[in-house]
């Protein structure tokens, strides 16, 4: 259960908001981080924590596409398909996924590693085409870079090429 596992974090989230209900989305994120998706049990638990009814939690969870209600692969590739990325070739990126991993949007590879979603604008139009893997951005994708991302993810679970997400202006580079 979330409550035992993340007691401190839940308390700090709850203390952030004057109205309890406002903590709903952060808690749903927490649940998603825990399991990779928001399960029914988690939604019921969050309802109990916030003194909402389960349908009220469910309504929020289904509204936001960033919250997965079904199990997804270990790496959730979210390729932006909005106009700017599409102009820069996001359809090609989806094509690469299809040829290299054999999955279309909404599908998961047989080994359960990758799930592809075609999503709407991720607010990185300047560096299109881009994709988001779990919570990291990979921008200015070329086939070579894309291959490297996939290989690194498979091998290390992370990749050096990740670039964000950043708020504008860019944060100062970490001091060495």
């Amino acid at each position, binding site marked *: 259960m979330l409550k035992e596992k993340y007691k401190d974090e839940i308390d700090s989230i709850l203390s952030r908001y004057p109205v309890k209900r406002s903590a709903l989305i952060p808690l749903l994120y927490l649940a998603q981080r825990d399991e990779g998706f928001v399960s*029914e049990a988690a*939604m019921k638990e969050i*309802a*109990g924590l916030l*003194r*909402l*009814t*389960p*349908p*009220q939690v*469910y*309504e929020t969870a*289904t*509204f936001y596409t960033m919250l997965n209600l079904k199990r997804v692969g270990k790496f959730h590739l979210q390729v932006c398909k909005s106009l700017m990325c599409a102009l820069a070739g996001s359809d090609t990126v989806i094509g690469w996924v299809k040829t290299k991993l054999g999955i279309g949007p909404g599908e998961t590879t047989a080994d359960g590693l990758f799930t592809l979603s075609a999503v709407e604008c991720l607010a990185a139009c300047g560096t299109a085409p881009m994709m988001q893997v779990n919570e990291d951005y990979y921008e200015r994708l070329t086939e070579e870079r894309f291959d490297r991302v996939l290989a690194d993810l498979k091998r290390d679970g992370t990749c050096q090429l990740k670039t964000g997400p950043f708020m504008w202006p860019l944060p100062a580079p970490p001091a060495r």
Partner: protein
Amino acid sequence: MATTTTETVRLTIDGIPISVPKGTLVIEAARRVGVMVPHFCYHPKLKPDANCRMCLVEVEKMPKLQTSCSTLATEGMAVRTATTVVHDAHKSVLEFILANHPLDCPVCDQGGKCDLQDFSHEYTATSRFIETKRIFQKEYFSPLIETQMNRCVQCLRCVRYCDEVMDVKALAPVGRGTMTEIKSFGAHPLDCEFCGGCVQICPVGAITSRLSMYEYRPWMLKRADTVCTFCGDGCQITVQTKDQELIEVNSAQGAGRNSGDLCARGFFGFHAASHPSRVTHPLIRRNGVLVEATWEEALEFVAEQTNRLKLAHGPHAFGGLITGRCTNEELYLFQKFMRLTIGTNNLDSSARYGHVNGVQAMRMVQGTHRWTVTFEDIVQADVLLLVGTNITEANPITGLKVKEAVKKHGATLLTIEAIQAAVGTISNISNLSEQHFCVAPSQFGAAVLGLLKAVVESNYVDSAISQRASDYVLAVSQAVQQLTWNDLALDTGISRESFVQMAAALTGGRRVVALAGQTLLRSQGSYGICLNLLDLLLLTGKLTAQGCGFAPLAEENNDQGAVEMGAVAALLPGALDLTDQDARTQIARVWKEDLPLAAGATLIEMIDRAQAGIIKGLFVIGENPVGSLPPQIGAKEALGKLDLLVCQELFLTETAELAHVVLPAASAMEKAGTFTNTEGHVQAVRPAIDPVGDSRPDWEILSAISVFMGAPLEYSEAKEILKEIRAVIPGYGSLGPSPIPPAVDRVAVDRYVNEGYRQDLTTRYTLPARAMRPEGTVQLGLVQSLFHSGKLSTHSKGLLQIEPSGFLQMNPVDAARFGLETGDRVRLSNGRGEFTTTAKVFDRVPEGLAWFPDHFAQAALRLFDCAVDPDTKVPYCRTASVSVMKTT
């Protein structure tokens, strides 16, 4: 009364000038001048949401079209609803709404009464939509409420109703954009209060009742406005029938005391009348078995036996019991029959099970037998004190008034209740309360005493009363000084600070209403607790103030009527004392005969007298003492000894099975008359169907028996009896749409503060015995379920779908202690017997208590003991200490 603003604004709608109170919405103002602006999402009960965009109107000096459902009327506003621009806007919005609508009117139950259908006709909307419509896959089917989201127009009325009015929040719009659908939770069927509000409020056929699905078309139905029989709230329902078949119940917005809101019992419980096991022919016991007979045979038998017994043993060898589900006319005729034709005061009604406590307390202190407040006062109250009401389940519509007061008007809700705050599928009043004391029913008295002590010690006593009745105030003060905070804390688990805080909230209110419910009225010592509550109001000066009062809630629909009609042993029609000479003369003048003077026996006394062989004949109308009292009382044996037991019944109950004659009675769906609801509002009952089989209304049966006995009480219709009631109680039942409650009788209050309080003050102001709870036991309580009412509703197929049987409901902590989980079999036992049932873990049950619904408690009854109130003779048999054991 409601404080209405007198400030008005003037505006014109389509050139028609009108002045409306400030704050009125344009759509409402338009309705007043007879302009109907089409709408889906607007509903007078709900806050404006303006999501359907159907009600666009043109307002002068505003650049864009405005939604009339969310625009407030302002001074000098000029609204136009009939221009081409507006018409085009309506038409285009309708085209959007219809785009994804399946247009399956022919198979939709709403067809014929559908807003979307009507507007489509009005605007002859044609669609240019040639794409494939969106289709929601159906995942599940709810037991009683059918959702067909393809038809949904996403007006969210159901969601808002569920939240704003019912406070259940069981529905939510799920998904986004055009794929929004109304769902409960995930792929689970709807699990909620089943109030049917969403069905009623849905403007299209997206949410329909499954109970009568596809069986009718609106134009085939005949309607009858009548009153629901499932609790004391007296909701007006419209029963719709098709060829003598009960099809549907609904309630029109604004109609009756409930203003269109219903609970599961009212909305889905109507099938009780058409249950196949109804008794449809008179039955006479011949050679030990009940066999069918004709009405003539049965009536002749009853009359002959009655006359024989009366001749042999005198009139006091008879007794009579009647249920509070009968109409006022029947209750009146019953007591007239018993008092006049038979000649005894041995008569009682189901008000004796608890409602009498509240009424007698009111008569004692404030001199009225009715509330001095109305539902409107509850809505307008700023402090509400609920003691042992479990209001959302026992009296759901009064509960709605409380919810409205809290949610819409910001009233302070104080509750003393054996319930824990918990989010659940059924609304829980303690979730809304500002301050909640969770105490066991046996300690309600202690909690009230704690409040009194806090009032006295914090000097919250009203100065007027201390001046007027210093002796009384002194006596009460001294009495509460005897109690220690320590004892109170031990009994109730509530600290002095909490008591003081609640007392402060109570005293600070301007309009204070105290409600007492069944949990209180049927628990031991409740007459005294009611008096203490009245003391509390009196001391804080809230008894006589405007909009303040004490309101005991009736369990059965006409318990209040039973008291007012004199269908209890000690009271005459008008709830006057049997010994009141003026009343006796007045009644004797109408009846043209004298009334018996000897004090009558009450329910338990009658059973005892039958046991002792003093009572030889008993008339039982719809009452079931064998089934509803614990076997310890020996009702079965006592009734077995009778020479004549006549039952007028709908079903062959445990009592009817012992009867010598069973006469088939008509249910409330089949007869005319009036019901008096818990607040004393008299409403008309109208027949929706003809009596089933050979059954007859109870008053007709009584009248016929009296004719056969040679002392006719003849009436040709129920209205004639009402006329006679009005002769006895002037003006009865002609209260009009909004009743004016009686005022507190100053003389009676004076009598009470000078004299009346003395007789039992010391007994009332002692703490109840502390509940001993040995290890391995729980306090088992019989409770009222939201989905049932008495035993009658267990014949209703709709309600049985929601709650088919009883469960032992237990707190999770207790359940863990006994190693129980939902669905486990559990054996309850104590010195009196044992009983096996299924457990259900339920987090609203307080620790140490366990609940079992009264409606299925037949086998559980033997665990209970029965104590009889010394003053009001009410049998208390709702709690018992039992040990719990898991079995297989």
